[in-house]
C-alpha cells in the first residue's frame, strides 16, 4: 500500500489521518489472521544470555505486555532455562510475583507473554521516596521470597534489576535461573555484587541462604542508596565482604550505617549472616 501526498495542507492531512485510524483495526485484523500475530513488538527493552525482551502490544485487547524471546538452538531444542522458568512460573500465583499470561511460538521461536512494568528498583531508587513506601517494598519482597521458598524453589538471581516497581508495589521477575532445591547445583549464579560467599568459593551444595544474602544486599542498597559490595572480580568481592563485615558488631565500626535505625541494621545483619563463611574458613 502506497500513499502519496501532493499539495498537503492541514485538512487533507487530517482526513488521511482519520482514514488511517479507521482502517488500523482492519490492518491489524488481517495481520493477525494471516500470520497469526497477536502481539506487535514496539521496542527492545533488554537482552541477556537467554534471549531478548521486547515491549509489545496485544492487538486484541490493546494491552501493553512484555515479550521474552528465547533463542531456540537447532541442536538442543527448548533451552533448559525456558523449561524451568515456565514450569515454575505456572505454579506461582502471588501478587508480588510476575504472572505468565501465556507462552506462544512465533517464527519457530518461543515467546513468553508477561505483564509490562516500566520501572525497576535501580531506577526507582534514583528518586527520593517516603520511608513508608520503602518499608512497604522491603516487606512485600520478603513475602514474595518466602512464598517461593515455601515451594522448595530457589530464585538464584535476586538483584534490583529483577525487581520491578509499579505504584510503589514490587514485582519479582526473571525465574530463568531458579530451580527446585537439589543436592547438587552449579555455583555460577546471581550477579556478582549480590553473590553469596559460599557461591564465590565455588560450593555446589548451597540452599536458600544465597537468596537471603542477595536480599540483605538489596535491603542495604535501599537504605544506603548505593550497592553494599561493588566488587570487580570474585576475589575482589570476597575481600570487600571480609573488610566490611568483621565480627558480629561490624556495623558499629562503619560510619555509613550510623544514621540507620537499629531494627533496620538487625534485619540486614540477619540476612547477611556469616555462619556459612565461618564454616568455609575453618
Amino acid at each position, binding site marked *: 500500500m502506497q500513499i502519496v501526498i501532493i499539495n498537503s495542507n492541514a485538512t487533507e492531512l487530517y482526513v488521511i489521518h482519520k482514514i488511517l485510524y479507521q482502517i488500523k483495526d482492519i490492518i491489524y485484523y488481517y495481520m493477525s489472521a494471516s500470520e497469526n500475530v497477536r502481539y506487535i513488538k514496539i521496542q527492545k527493552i533488554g537482552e541477556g544470555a537467554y534471549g531478548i525482551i521486547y515491549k509489545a502490544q496485544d492487538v486484541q485487547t490493546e494491552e501493553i505486555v512484555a515479550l521474552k524471546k528465547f533463542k531456540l538452538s537447532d*541442536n538442543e531444542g527448548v533451552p533448559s532455562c525456558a523449561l524451568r522458568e515456565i514450569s515454575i512460573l505456572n505454579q506461582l500465583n502471588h501478587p508480588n510475583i510476575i504472572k505468565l499470561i501465556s507462552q506462544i511460538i512465533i517464527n519457530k521461536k518461543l515467546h513468553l507473554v508477561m505483564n509490562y512494568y516500566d520501572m525497576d528498583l535501580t531506577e526507582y531508587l534514583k528518586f527520593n521516596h517516603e520511608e513508608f513506601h520503602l518499608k512497604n517494598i522491603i516487606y512485600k519482597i520478603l513475602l514474595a521470597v518466602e512464598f517461593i521458598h515455601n515451594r522448595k524453589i530457589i530464585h538464584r538471581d535476586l538483584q534490583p534489576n529483577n525487581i520491578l516497581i509499579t505504584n510503589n508495589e514490587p514485582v519479582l521477575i526473571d525465574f530463568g535461573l531458579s530451580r527446585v532445591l537439589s543436592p*547438587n547445583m552449579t555455583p555460577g549464579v546471581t550477579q556478582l555484587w549480590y553473590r553469596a560467599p559460599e557461591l564465590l568459593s565455588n560450593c555446589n551444595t548451597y*540452599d536458600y541462604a544465597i537468596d537471603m544474602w542477595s536480599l540483605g544486599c538489596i535491603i542495604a542498597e535501599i537504605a544506603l542508596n548505593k550497592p553494599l559490595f561493588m566488587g570487580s572480580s570474585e576475589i575482589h568481592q570476597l575481600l570487600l565482604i571480609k573488610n566490611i563485615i568483621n565480627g558480629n558488631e561490624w556495623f558499629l565500626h562503619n560510619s555509613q550505617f550510623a544514621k540507620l535505625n537499629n531494627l533496620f541494621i538487625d534485619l540486614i545483619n540477619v540476612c547477611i549472616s556469616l555462619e556459612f563463611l565461618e564454616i568455609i574458613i575453618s
Partner: protein
Amino acid sequence: TSGVTTLLTNKSFLLPQKSDNPQSVNAYKKEIVTYMKEKSCRSNYKMNAFQFQTEITEKMRSILLDWIVDVHFKFKLDTETLFLTISIIDRVLEIHQISKSKFQLYGVTALFIASKYEEVYSVPHVKDLVYVCDNAYTKEEILATEGKIISLLGFDLLTTSPLRMLNVYQETAKLDQKNYMLARYLI
C-alpha cells in the same frame, strides 16, 4: 558384589544427614511438606490409561521403562531425573494416543526433557539419544516430539517424586542406613 559396593560408596545413596545439613531447610519444612502432598495428589498415576490406549499395553510400558533405566545408567544421570521421566511418560499416556512404533521415541524424549530440567552439567546431546535408539528416529523427530510433549503437559514439570517424599519421611521416622536403603530399593 562389586556393583553393590559401588552403590554403597556412591555419595548420593548415603543417608541424608539431619543436623548439619543446611539443605534440609527445617524452618520451611511444614509448608514444603503440605505443598508436596498437594502436588502428589494431582500427579497420581491413573489406572485407566491402558483402557484409553489402543496399541500400548502394560507390558510394553514395563519394557520401555527397563530400557529407560539402562539408558539413564549409561548417561550417569541423577535418580531424580528417572522419576521425572517416568512421571512424564505416564502423564502423556493418560492424555495422548501413542502408536506402537513411536512409543520409544516418546520415552527417549521424556528422558531428554527430564534431564534438561533436573541435571546440572550432564545433559545428554540429541545425537547421543539418536545413537542409543539405534538410529530408529532422527534428530528432527526427537525435537518435534519434545515440543509436542511440552505442550501436552502445558509445561507442568514440577512434580513430587517418591524419592523426595521418602527423604522427608525418613527424617521424621529417623530411619537408619539399612532401612533407608531398603526403602530406596522398594520405590
